[in-house]
């Protein structure tokens, strides 16, 4: 079944699809943030894979360099890098996402060497000139650097082809999200998250085929009705959906999210008319923003409120990876604004991976009680 296949792929960092790709003599490129313009990487003939620290249980190698109060995602990632877990990639594109990830790159650059590794700089402000600078100095530079590093030629037609494939991915994912957000969803939050994550772990073309088939399979499934509460989740990025599992084990159903590894990654599409490189740059610059973009709080809030209402949620659960500043800044404000709309929220602190399930279960069950569910 296609669904099971995608769910399985969503739990991996390396899998047979990547293996097949490599066996054809083609290259793989890693990236660390949803601000990395994947379409360009793919247009260079590379397979873009988002680096995840799936299965990483410790950070002791990274901890030699980074203190305990550095975010655990950065440290798990660095630790995995130092432990050769990403040796299947041929290069990496980092982004100056936040202080913790950009400094992780600075340390990585000293300790882990890939033939090609770079950091892309994303401005913090929204003037059109800032966008032009980004297009000119970061996006075009990435394109020419990739061409040099991999002897590839990135053409308008390869970019357009790439855009079409990604847009299809995002269209199909939007349909999956619609099913998840239905009154009687045909799929739960955990499986949805894994299916979405799978898109970052395999070639998109193949993914689209499997997702299309999955959507057909889902249509035949009965809707889920025996849930206590409809929940929106937000906050720091999630790879392994342990938190969603706890919520759903406690009887909740995750019907919406505002995660960069979820809805925010898949929502915005690239324009198909005009210069393709420009269109890609525009999409990444302008897509539904990360909390790092503090000038556009209203836009971030509207998106949260919109997702909450559209999916008729009973409550929201925002978690942040311990020591993440940006999400701490936003989660509190979202809580205020959701409360005004009569939607209670729960704020949680967690590690990148959740292993102390009991603590979360207690708090989430208490939250459901509070919701009267």
């Amino acid at each position, binding site marked *: 079944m296609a669904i099971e296949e995608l769910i399985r792929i969503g739990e991996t960092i390396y899998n047979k699809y990547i293996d097949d790709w490599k066996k054809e003599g083609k290259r793989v490129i890693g990236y660390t943030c949803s601000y990395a313009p994947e379409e360009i990487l793919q247009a260079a003939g590379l397979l873009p894979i988002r680096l995840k620290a799936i299965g990483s249980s410790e950070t002791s190698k990274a901890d030699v360099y980074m*203190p305990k109060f550095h975010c655990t995602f950065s440290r798990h990632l660095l630790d995995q890098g130092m432990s050769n877990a990403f040796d299947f990639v041929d290069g990496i594109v980092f982004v100056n996402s936040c202080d913790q990830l950009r400094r992780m790159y600075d340390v990585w650059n000293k300790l882990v060497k890939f033939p090609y590794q770079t950091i892309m700089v994303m401005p913090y402000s929204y003037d059109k000139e800032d966008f032009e600078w980004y297009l000119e100095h970061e996006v075009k530079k990435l394109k020419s650097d990739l061409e040099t590093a991999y002897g590839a030629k990135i053409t308008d037609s390869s970019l357009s082809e790439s855009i079409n494939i990604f847009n299809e991915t995002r269209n199909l994912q939007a349909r999956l999200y619609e099913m998840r957000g239905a009154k009687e969803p045909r799929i739960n939050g955990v499986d949805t998250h894994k299916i979405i994550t799978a898109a970052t772990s395999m070639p998109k073309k193949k993914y689209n085929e499997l997702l299309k088939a999955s959507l057909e399979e889902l249509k035949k499934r009965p809707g889920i009705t025996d849930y206590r509460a409809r929940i929106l989740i937000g906050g720091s990025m999630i790879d392994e959906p342990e938190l969603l599992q706890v919520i759903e084990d406690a009887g909740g159903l995750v019907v919406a999210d505002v995660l960069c590894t979820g809805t925010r990654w898949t929502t915005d599409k690239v324009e198909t008319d005009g210069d393709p490189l420009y269109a890609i740059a525009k999409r990444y610059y302008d897509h539904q923003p990360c909390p790092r973009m503090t000038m556009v709080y209203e836009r971030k809030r509207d998106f949260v409120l919109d997702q909450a209402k559209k999916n008729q949620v009973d409550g929201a659960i925002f978690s942040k990876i311990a020591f993440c500043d940006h999400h701490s800044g936003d989660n509190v*404000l979202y809580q205020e604004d959701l409360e005004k709309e009569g939607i209670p929220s729960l704020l949680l602190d967690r590690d990148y991976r959740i292993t102390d399930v009991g603590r979360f279960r207690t708090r989430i069950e208490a939250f459901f009680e509070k919701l009267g569910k």
Partner: protein
Amino acid sequence: MKPVPKELEGIELFQRYLTTFNLINIALTNFKTVEDLMAAAPEILKTLPEYDVGVFQSLRPDIVIAAFHPKNRNVVLKCAQAQIKFWQGIIDDIKADKPQLDFWFAQGPELFRALGFSPLCTETTLVASAIYQDGCEDATDLFRSKGFADHICTANVAYPGYVMNGNWKVPHVMVKPGTPCPSSNLAYQAIKKWYGNDYIMYDSTYYLDEKGLAHQTDAIRRAIAKLEKISGQKLDEAVLRQQMKESNQTYALCGELLELRKNKPNPDPGMHRILDLLMMVTLLGEPSCTEYFQLLVDEAKERVAKGVGAIPEGKKEIRALHTWALNAYMPDLYHWLEETYGMTYLTCGLSYFVNHQVDTSSADSMVEGWAQRIMNFTMERQSMSFGDVWVDDMFYLAKNWDADCGIFAGNLSCKQGWAMSKLLGDRLEDELGIPSVRFEIELCDKRTCPPDEFKHRIGSFVETILTNSKKRV
């Protein structure tokens, strides 16, 4: 947090600062020693208004004692006298409803004056941290009580706390570069959401080269256009020129002072570094700022001529480079280190001002020069760009100023600084043979590393590595 009396609504903190600097002025002008002051205090207090008495009693004794030390007193007095005028000016401007502009510290106020604003640096909350027994932890806690994390920089979140409580008037506009840092960005975001004031963020360059300068200059030009709309006043070239000519002189003296610290022993007392920062963010562009640095330079030169330093005569010097920055809640620590261990203060990530002279021939050249200064402003330069910049700068300073050790008393919330601390320490050790110590503090919150623990951390380091001898207590 204590409620603000109606008559001090929006200006309580500034009034407190004004009173404090007035008291410091009276104390240092009229008394030779702290003992003289304390002997006369009961009588003087009887003559002072109740408010002033309260402020006097809230002062941290250690900083008052350190201020009276012969090597410190002239400079502290100079700073206090300049600050009196500054805070009086802020209060007057607020009462006159002049457009108030709150800005993040890594920018000079000159440009904002030329745009018709009353510029106020949001990190001047460090004064409260340094001077009052209660510090600014109450304001920090008030902001955090909304649910914000406890690992957000305390130099940035006392400000929203004071605004929330009414000690600090909501500004017309807030201005900051995009990086650093997450703490200030999220604090400003929250204030804008709650109070609806304008908030202008201009992009900071990640690159410190020519192209980076062009981008930075362009970003600032756009910010100027937005600010002109808010103040309703065009950039006044004459005011800017006068301000930049003045700040050129200040920067030249900063450079000279840094050079003077190459002398052995270092002639420049370490407690003044926090005053340097305060003067730069409040009065840069004004003659009083230049006069302040002139006094520092003159005193340092005088000591060099006499062959003495900022440490007791006969004491062996230990030259310390503070590879993160200073602490705000106990600046007298640096005085204590000089007196106790002969440990002098070379510079740090919050007092390393690189002399950059601005071409004042045109408005364009001045804006570009201002941009150049922002890019190289202490801490801004080291933290907005690649980690190597931080490491390279500290390495350069350690090498050329002949440091004996690196002290990374790192702000817990400054993760981007911490991430480089091990690589920096290794480089100092491997290439220069300089040992380092690293431990966690919080810039404006004494609870993370209380004063005694701070002293103990550095003291043990000195006794363990640097002198290999012990001290009789």
